[in-house]
């Protein structure tokens, strides 16, 4: 493990050295992703030049000491962030997706696709409701659910008590596969932290804690431009959230380390996107001058910190929180902001959402389209953030139970469609995009499981 430790330090130090006084240039690999990459890097570079801040630098010793002292309350630090802006926001990313044409696709059904009137123009295969019902069979009306069958009107003897007992048994036997199956019906609040750790195969071994400490050391020693972007994002989003503001300091402790974690790069092996690879000015194409920036290959966008925030309700030990988040990211969240044809990728989710709406709520769909309120323009931000910050925390955790349980993000698209179905009556009466946004502005009172259940199992198909 110590070899890996010194490897990370070496890599970071090398990056810092290479980036001294340089800008980044992208090598265009594929049309859409390439031009997007170029835009992001341009944004980073211009911030770099305008603000005269290097992309990376080694901190002087005095500054290192100061940061170490403040490690538990970086939230009180008030660096001047007014000139920083997020590299991109979800809506910018949506524009990229809308303009996608002819990428690699899996079993596209181009015949029926010609009638698709949504924004996504990529003929990927998505499930219809009968297929979703098969897939999400445990959400059916005859199966007990947490989020429905634990409400006050239902005596706990009918479902809840037994469900809790089974959960305890699963934990006692440390059965990861059983845990994954189990949380499809929701996880009891008291068991959730352990169950998720079991499903994600996270057990805090000494080497894991050491690894986290090593990342922390990197943060102390080197300052990256993206750090300021992270600060800005936390201040703009999580710090203003009714539920998550309390955990501001944890978010820095996780995200600053995350951006230096080169092991995250490995997820790109199964991600058909690639990390933004760049070259030092004047050395385009020369591999020894290539850098992944930031070291983990993930450029944070506006709202990124909201992936971490809900996890603070479950884990308050920083290295455990870090591990859980990293695993959630490389298994799920990365798919929400990279372009691929995977069924859980954001492109498929968008298409699934639009198709569900157009097929099962055609009147609503056409009406919204008519008034210039393409539904995806409203629901996109929900899906990109996996609904974090939009739902009440207890509801969000019930939703994420199912993401883990089914190992799929498709439920996000189904929920988005279910929300539209739920508010259909009001939406039919609006006459502008702004009014439609207003109807859907506040999701904090929604109960996700009844919505999902009704949409999937009680709608006439």
């Amino acid at each position, binding site marked *: 493990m110590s070899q890996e430790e010194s490897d990370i330090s070496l890599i970071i130090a090398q990056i810092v050295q290479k980036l001294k006084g340089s800008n980044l240039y992208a090598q265009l690999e594929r049309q859409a992703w390439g031009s997007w990459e170029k835009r992001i890097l341009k944004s980073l570079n211009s911030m770099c030049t305008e603000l005269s801040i290097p992309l990376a630098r080694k901190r002087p010793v005095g500054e290192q000491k100061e940061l170490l002292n403040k490690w538990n309350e970086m939230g009180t630090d008030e660096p001047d962030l007014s000139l920083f802006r997020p590299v991109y926001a979800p809506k910018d990313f949506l524009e990229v997706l809308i303009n996608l044409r002819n990428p690699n696709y899996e079993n596209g059904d181009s015949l029926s696709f010609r009638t698709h009137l949504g924004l996504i123009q990529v003929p990927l295969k998505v499930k219809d409701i009968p297929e979703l019902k098969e897939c999400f069979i445990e959400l059916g009306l005859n199966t007990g659910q947490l989020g429905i069958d634990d409400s*006050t009107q239902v005596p706990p003897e009918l479902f809840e008590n037994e469900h809790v007992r089974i959960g305890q048994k699963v934990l006692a036997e440390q059965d990861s596969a059983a845990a994954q199956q189990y949380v499809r019906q929701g996880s009891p*609040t*008291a068991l959730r932290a352990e169950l998720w750790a079991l499903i994600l195969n996270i057990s805090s071994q000494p080497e894991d804690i050491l690894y986290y400490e090593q990342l922390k050391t990197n943060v102390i020693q080197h300052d990256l431009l993206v750090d300021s972007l992270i600060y800005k994002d936390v201040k703009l989003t999580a710090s203003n959230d*009714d539920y998550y503001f*309390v955990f501001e*300091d944890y978010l820095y402790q996780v995200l600053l380390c995350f951006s230096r974690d080169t092991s995250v790069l490995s997820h790109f092996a199964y991600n058909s996107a690639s990390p933004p690879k760049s070259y030092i000015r004047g050395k385009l194409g020369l591999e020894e001058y290539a850098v992944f920036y930031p070291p983990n290959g993930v450029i944070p966008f506006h709202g990124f910190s909201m992936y971490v925030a809900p996890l603070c*309700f479950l884990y308050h030990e920083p290295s455990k929180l870090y591990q859980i988040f990293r695993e959630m990211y490389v298994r799920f969240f990365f798919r929400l902001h990279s372009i691929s044809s995977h069924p859980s990728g954001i492109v498929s989710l968008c298409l699934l959402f639009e198709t569900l709406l157009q097929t099962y709520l055609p009147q609503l769909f056409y009406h919204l389209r008519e008034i210039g309120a393409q539904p995806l323009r409203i629901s996109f931000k929900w899906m990109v953030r996996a609904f974090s910050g939009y739902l009440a925390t*207890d509801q969000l955790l019930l939703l994420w139970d199912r993401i883990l349980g089914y190992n799929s993000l498709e439920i996000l698209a189904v929920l988005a469609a279910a929300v539209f179905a739920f508010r259909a009556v009001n939406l039919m009466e609006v006459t502008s995009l702004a009014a439609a946004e207003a109807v859907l502005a506040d999701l904090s009172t929604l109960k996700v499981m009844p919505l999902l259940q009704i949409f999937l199992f009680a709608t006439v198909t």
Partner: protein
Amino acid sequence: MAGKVKWVTDIEKSVLINNFEKRGWVQVTENEDWNFYWMSVQTIRNVFSVETGYRLSDDQIVNHFPNHYELTRKDLMVKNIKRYRKELEKEGSPLAEKDENGKYLYLDFVPVTYMLPADYNLFVEEFRKSPSSTWIMKPCGKAQGKGIFLINKLSQIKKWSRDSKTSSFVSQSTKEAYVISLYINNPLLIGGRKFDLRLYVLVSTYRPLRCYMYKLGFCRFCTVKYTPSTSELDNMFVHLTNVAIQKHGDDYNHIHGGKWTVSNLRLYLESTRGKEVTSKLFDEIHWIIVQSLKAVAVNASPSLTSSTANDRILKYNLINDTLNIAVPNGEIPDCKWNKSPPKEVLGNYEILYDEELAQGDGADRELRSRSGQALGPKAGRSRDSGRTVLTTWK
């Protein structure tokens, strides 16, 4: 009875006035015939004062009991609880049971407290037993965190020792009176911060005791991380959670005001600490409230100033539910009408304690359940993000 309820208030707050108006009640002045008077604390004092006060007639109700300050003034509250405990002990009530160290098993919910300057010498004796402890000084008659400070040296409260030595001619005006309590320096922290609970309790009748707890209470967080370090004793942003204090800190955020709902707190505690210990915590909180009310019957004046938009909505709904319970059916009050309101009317309130119901089952049910024995069907469950059974000891 026909006729609209006539209301008066001397507090110009929209959350009140909107609620009265939406019920079609008629605003009158205090000199006219009124049914419902929402009074400020000052007015209460006048209405119920022995010299200038007047008797309410059968069709009049007000929003405070005459002796509300028995609970809101810190010195009176402490006196009442100490007296209540002694009374129970004298009666031989099992509630007053103590452990081998002399600590109350069920009634130990006030830290060691003394009145200053009256108990100064007693305090010094206690202080010397553990000289490294921290104590908190609170003025008896103030609110919103005003005048509170922490001490860990006797020299810091010399002023009160001087006064106690002066002649009894010196009128110790109640404004100067303080209580000093042992400071609890290992509070539960969330996100490394201290927080307190703001819970709304409505007492509709004292005899029999009938009280309701509003489900939507909230926690108020300090903006600064907690540290028991003595160098930060002067930093009130670390130790006090009152919004009035926090509002002036640099980090105060105006969008959320540093608050969580109680149901959120419950979710967090269940997720991180487990269900049993969380349920026990809330049970004990409810127990403390009911015992304090029994020690004295009071109602205090919650802040009706709203700091954020969400806050305004909360307080509007709170007043709405309060009025629904206090003025049943929106009819002119009749003091002889003493039935429990039907469940539908409660809104976001839950029954915290109903003496008539409790007495029907015998008083030592209270104690049996406190020692953990099962009692039968749970009463009053509420829907929030972690399900609450309000009390198991009804």
